[in-house]
């Protein structure tokens, strides 16, 4: 690949007490591409995302941003780098309106006072820029929105900040067919605008529809990061459920032993 990675995670370890949730995980994210992060329930996808966004401290490993090592201690650090996350549980405040949610924690002010007109205008422009036309008023409470509209607000919140990396954790999980198509289209448009997008999804059709690369997590290990065009549905499903598929993924004997992993990973297609 000619494009240099924008965000790189190297050797990330994360444990919750005795449970090791992430083991030596590597991930590279390139601008202008959608990287699909797949894995079974509990594989550690959301945990990896929260490590990247600074919500969980990591136990080992490092993050490189634009080739430079960076430390991420909290959501503000990640946001400072231009990393925005749309969480699986959305993290919107039901009692606030769309504009208030989009600017939460980063309100525009003139002096002491909140600059509502500027915020409302920027929110409107962002939503228009994403070709979102599904909300009646920017001043309606988020609780009155449909699932797809909430998802849209969460995504718009993430792209409002000239962000460079947008990570979406299962953005379509709760959506119907039409709204899923809308959100996926939005995801594709973000990448086409030059953002690095990470999309977590359980739906293989969605993954193959929008992603350029697929990264597969299996029991907390990154077993493969491949170009979407190089693999089939069946291979990805195998990677997700068994950790290997043909010459992709964990070496066979390592899985069978169940003791030592991770040092013999093959990740064709991801060579930088």
């Amino acid at each position: 690949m000619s494009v240099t990675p924008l965000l790189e995670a190297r050797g990330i370890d994360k444990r919750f007490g005795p449970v090791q949730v992430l083991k030596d995980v590597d991930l590279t994210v390139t601008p202008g591409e959608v990287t699909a992060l797949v894995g079974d329930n509990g594989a550690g996808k959301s945990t990896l995302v929260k490590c990247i966004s600074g919500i969980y401290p990591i136990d080992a490993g490092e993050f490189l941003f634009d080739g430079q090592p960076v430390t991420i201690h909290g959501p503000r650090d990640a946001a400072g780098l231009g990393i925005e996350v749309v969480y699986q549980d959305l993290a919107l405040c039901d009692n606030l309106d769309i504009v208030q949610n989009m600017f939460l924690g980063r309100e525009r002010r003139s002096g002491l006072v909140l600059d509502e007109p500027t915020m409302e205008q920027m929110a409107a422009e962002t939503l228009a820029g994403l070709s979102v036309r599904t909300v009646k008023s920017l001043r309606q409470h988020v609780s009155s929105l449909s699932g797809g509209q909430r998802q849209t607000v969460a995504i718009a919140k993430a792209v409002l900040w000239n962000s460079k990396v947008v990570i979406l954790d299962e953005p379509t999980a709760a959506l119907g067919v039409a709204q899923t198509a809308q959100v996926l289209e939005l995801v594709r448009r973000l990448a086409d605008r030059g953002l690095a997008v990470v999309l977590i999804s359980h739906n293989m059709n969605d993954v193959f529809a929008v992603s350029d690369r697929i990264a597969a997590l299996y029991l907390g290990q990154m077993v493969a990061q491949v170009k979407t065009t190089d693999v089939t549905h069946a291979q990805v499903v195998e990677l997700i459920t068994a950790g290997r598929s043909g010459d992709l993924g964990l070496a066979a004997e390592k899985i069978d032993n169940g003791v030592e992993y991770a040092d013999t990973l093959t990740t064709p297609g991801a060579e930088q």
Partner: protein
Amino acid sequence: MTTTAHHIEPVAVAPKPTVGSHIRDYLSRVGGGDLGALPAVLGLIVLCVFFAIMKPVFFSAGNFANLFTQGAAVTIIAMGLIFVLLLGEIDLSAGFASGVCAAILAQLMAEQGAPWYLAVLAAIVTGVVIGLVLGFLVAKVGIPSFVVTLAGFLAFQGTVLLLIKGGTNVSIRDDVILAIANKNIVPWLGWVLTIIGIAGYAAVVLLSRRRRAARGLVTEPLAVAVGRIAALAVILGIAVFVLNQERSRNVVVVSLKGVPIVVPIIAALLIIWTFILRRTAYGRHIYAVGGNREAARRAGISVDRIRISVFVICSGMAAIGGIVAASRANSVDANTGGSNVLLYAVGAAVIGGTSLFGGKGRVLDALLGGAVIAVIDNGMGLMGLSSGQKFVFTGVVLLLAAGVDALSRRRAAATGTR
């Protein structure tokens, strides 16, 4: 991905709101469970009409002034409580915290001969320290606010007893402190303040409307904006006019007219806290933490700091409420801030429309609810009912308000409005 066509109305080009659409919006919000100030205002009207019929003296200028001085302390404490309630927490110690602060004020003046401003400062600092301790125990140690402040309730009750050294009461002799709840401002000054208030409100409403229009944002119809300003002008005008009437039974001995000093104090507190809650990032963050704590945390908001700060505001306002109560009673005794004060304050907030579940409430709610409580207390007193009957009735009203809150939440959840 292929592009799919969407068939929904655009975001920025929403239809221009008219007076009609404004009213329809309001009705649909009410229908959707967002009752706002409606129950409190309706309740206030019904109660006033009822008491006026039962006891015509209820509608006299003298009694009208009494309502303000009677309800002042509870209303001020309720204003502070609203910040705690916005986070879905509770402060059961606010009543006796006000008692502790009032006792400190009284003792500093009586025993140390401290000037009133030092005593007031000490009382408010005491409130702030109490709030810091409560907030720390809730936010950093992780004890539920119910338990922390229940402990505070007991401990502060004891502290009041210790501070007045077992004496029956400590009298207040300082003229400035006594004036707060017992003296009035001269009538012309009342009018000047009223006009400044109305002009200020008009300026805020019209300027923000202009700024929005300048950017091509949706604005409320001019008629609605003017209507709001006119409504405020009428309410304030009538209130000040009535309060400026002569209330003395014997004008030759003493003249008694003008707005009670405590009224502009409450108005100032209302404006300051409303500004902080609605117009600053800090206020926005309070709503966010009350609505979804995890979302606030992920937005980089320091949730602990917000949680501690609301207890500080609550106890600080309790201190001010305690000073007003001491002024009204001319003394501080073991029961200052005790008996029904806390429940009346919580009741005022809830009756005004603040939710016990967090995330919803305004400082104005304390005023509306405080008015309801003051009217009940005053009206039933005029009717010669016993304290027992008053307590039972107030309890029923509080339950009614909390029931309205819970039911409107259910309705909001069902209709997806909130």
